[in-house]
């Protein structure tokens, strides 16, 4: 009886950990709920309920004993889609009966602390290349590509670095927009690139909260109104932070 009870708690732990990793790394709410319920089901718990919001997960399972419920708080959210897809494949393997609770838990724990696959420099470089591409996509001329790339790389560098140092939300985006905008303006002033608007827009593209926008819409459609509205608000505030950063630059131009 005791062993049985313990195992049920293990199942909950595996489900919750899977949900936590997914949510922390940018999965949609309905996917998190779905994965958690599937994992519980695969381990032999037919009925479970999960309530997922961007800041916490509540999960309860129904068994012969009284209902058990656990809560996990989500405080840090980043975007690491590799982890989302890795949890997804672990959940598939659980469903296929390839993993025991202990194995699954160990794999998830390992995944949770895994570093980003692409190095810091690679990400900065990717941001720079995205900035450069957008100058052309937005019908700018080629001489604006290089300044936009440098300013975009700097903006993304600042977003990543400042969010490590200052935990205040939206401050890193504000600082990044400020720095990216200032650098773009300096380039424009010394004649490096002739189209200030496109350089700035290109430089700020890596900051756009694309994942939040997509997830907000998908959550709202799936009926997860709390998550959808919260993510929409986060996206809106991020956009406002970027806008304020640029506004500061423009008042001095």
């Amino acid at each position, binding site marked *: 009886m005791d062993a049985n009870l313990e195992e049920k708690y293990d199942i909950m732990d595996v489900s919750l950990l899977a949900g936590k990793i997914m949510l922390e790394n940018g999965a949609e709410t309905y996917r998190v709920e779905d*994965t958690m319920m599937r994992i519980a089901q695969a381990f032999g718990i037919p009925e479970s309920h999960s309530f997922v919001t961007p800041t916490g997960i509540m999960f309860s399972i129904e068994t012969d004993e009284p209902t058990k419920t656990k809560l996990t708080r989500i405080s840090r959210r980043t975007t690491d889609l590799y982890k*989302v897809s890795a949890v997804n494949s672990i959940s598939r393997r659980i469903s296929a009966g390839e993993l025991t609770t202990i194995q699954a838990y160990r794999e998830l724990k390992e995944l949770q602390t895994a570093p980003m696959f692409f190095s810091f420099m690679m990400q900065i470089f990717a941001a720079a290349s995205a900035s450069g591409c957008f100058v052309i996509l937005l019908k700018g001329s080629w001489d604006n590509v290089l300044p936009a790339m440098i300013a975009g790389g700097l903006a993304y560098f600042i977003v990543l670095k400042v969010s490590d140092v200052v935990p205040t939300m939206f401050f890193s985006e504000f600082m990044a927009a400020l720095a990216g905008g200032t650098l773009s303006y300096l380039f424009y002033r010394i004649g490096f690139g002739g189209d200030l608007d496109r350089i700035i*827009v290109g430089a*700020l593209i890596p900051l756009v909260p694309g994942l939040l926008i997509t997830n907000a819409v998908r959550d709202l459609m799936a009926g997860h109104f709390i998550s959808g509205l919260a993510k929409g608000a986060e996206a809106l505030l991020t956009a406002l932070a970027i806008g304020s950063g640029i506004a500061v630059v423009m008042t001095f131009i």
Partner: protein
Amino acid sequence: MTILSNMLLSFLAAASFGVMFNVPKKLLVKCGTVGMAGWMVFFFLSEHAVDPLPSTVAAAFTVAVIGHVYARVYKTPVIIFTVAGIIPLVPGGTAYRAMRAFVQNDYENALSLAAKAFMISGSIALGLVLSDVFYQLILRKKMRPENDAAV
């Protein structure tokens, strides 16, 4: 020439966003193609003087439909493919011009630009919604009815 450079650069841009979001390495190229498809739809429609709103809806729809198909085929969450593809459609330029107009106390232009940016964002959402409906009605039936993890 413009078409070619647009194709190449939209591919590169979407793949770059894939790197920033740490998409699994072997899926980066697919992310790039999704982004390219979406942008080219938008590009051709705007070249033919279609209003940005319907162009955005069509492009977002394309992105999400291809994303759903890829998600099915490669058994990965659909957001991996859609996120990178949506970003080129986000009205960054319009939002920027709106912000600039606000700062210059040009509220009339600022409000109309802000409204435009808002409507384009709404169009992206609409495109995503439509593709989900489309997917649930058609693709899910046609492709394997196997009831595995949600895509």
